[in-house]
């Protein structure tokens, strides 16, 4: 590794009691932030979309997350960049989700699409988002991060600042909740099918 890159890497990782010893230069900061965007944008976007934000809200939320990351770049441990971004995204996403019109926690109010329509991936995602929107934020976040974004429970615990046991408990409850809601949707579809 050339001496300049070595110095930059040591500045980026040289932490003393959680605080950086030297501030990164603007060029290094920009390079690091660009790297974070390239590496984690898709993860952030998928997480925010499944939390219940639409495309434009997810874009806005990611911008807000990046601005927070930019302000705190010197304090972010390079090993836990994704955890920091997801934790910030969770807070921003919950705030934006709370602004949206409330949906009931029970069955789907809108007409359930016909099974044939679900072949279309887009409609499948819409139904998934409707189901997730009716779950609680805490369960939804753990479920999405583990079973859709595919993080490990340890990574979720670090990202959401939870104990590993709490993550496991929420994941169990979230899966059971998801299965119940899907079963209700299926039952509704079957009734419609029989009624034809």
């Amino acid at each position: 590794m050339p001496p300049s890159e070595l110095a930059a890497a040591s500045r980026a990782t040289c932490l003393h009691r959680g605080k950086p010893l030297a501030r990164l230069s603007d060029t290094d900061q920009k390079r690091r932030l660009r790297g974070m965007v390239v590496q984690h944008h898709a993860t952030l976007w998928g997480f925010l979309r499944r939390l219940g934000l639409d495309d434009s809200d997810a874009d806005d939320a990611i911008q807000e997350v990046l601005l927070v990351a930019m302000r705190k770049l010197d304090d972010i441990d390079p090993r836990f960049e994704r955890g920091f971004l997801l934790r910030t995204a969770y807070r921003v996403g919950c705030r934006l989700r709370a602004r949206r019109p409330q949906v009931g926690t029970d069955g789907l109010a809108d007409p359930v699409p016909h099974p044939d329509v679900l072949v279309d991936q887009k409609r499948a995602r819409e139904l998934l988002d409707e189901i997730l929107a009716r779950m609680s934020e805490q369960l939804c976040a753990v479920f999405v991060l583990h079973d859709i974004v595919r993080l490990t429970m340890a990574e979720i615990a670090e990202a959401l600042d939870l104990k590993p046991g709490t993550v496991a408990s929420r994941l169990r409850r979230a899966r059971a909740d998801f299965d119940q809601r899907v079963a209700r949707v299926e039952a509704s579809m079957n009734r419609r099918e029989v009624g034809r």
Partner: protein
Amino acid sequence: MSPDPSFEPKSELGRQLLKAGRDDEPPEGATDRALELVESTFAAEEAPAPKRRWALWALPAAAVVVGVVVVAQLRESSTEQPVAEPVPTSTADPAPTATATAAATAKVATRPPASASASASASATVKVATRPPKGYRPKTSSGGKTAGTGSAGKTKPPPAKGACGCAAEDLMCQMRCGQK
């Protein structure tokens, strides 16, 4: 017991929904927009940098200039010549020239009273050196005393002056001006 890491929903529909969620990708250009945000934010931060550098030397320089002005004014006020007494209202006496008045007052201010009998009358003149700043108005209505004059609540009329501009009671006038 921790949950199964490779979870799959019980129903086909659930599996289908989860698969749709996992396959979802950001729309075209979303990542580019985020990168543009990074670029534009850093560009905005870099732009005002020259102003900040300019302020680094401009602020201390301004502080030094203000300090010099304040010190100069303080020095000037401490070495300021005593101001001459107001011109008497009498029109019979010709008004003294400014230089003569200033010279006379300066001498009076720096010399002690010539005698004990003259100290009472000279005290009013000596007080000129320690006169309060402009705008000050002694109380004339009630209560306050004017130090050294002994008159309570009244301002003393200006002393009569001779043709040379010295006070009429000034014992050193004859020696100085040769007119008495």
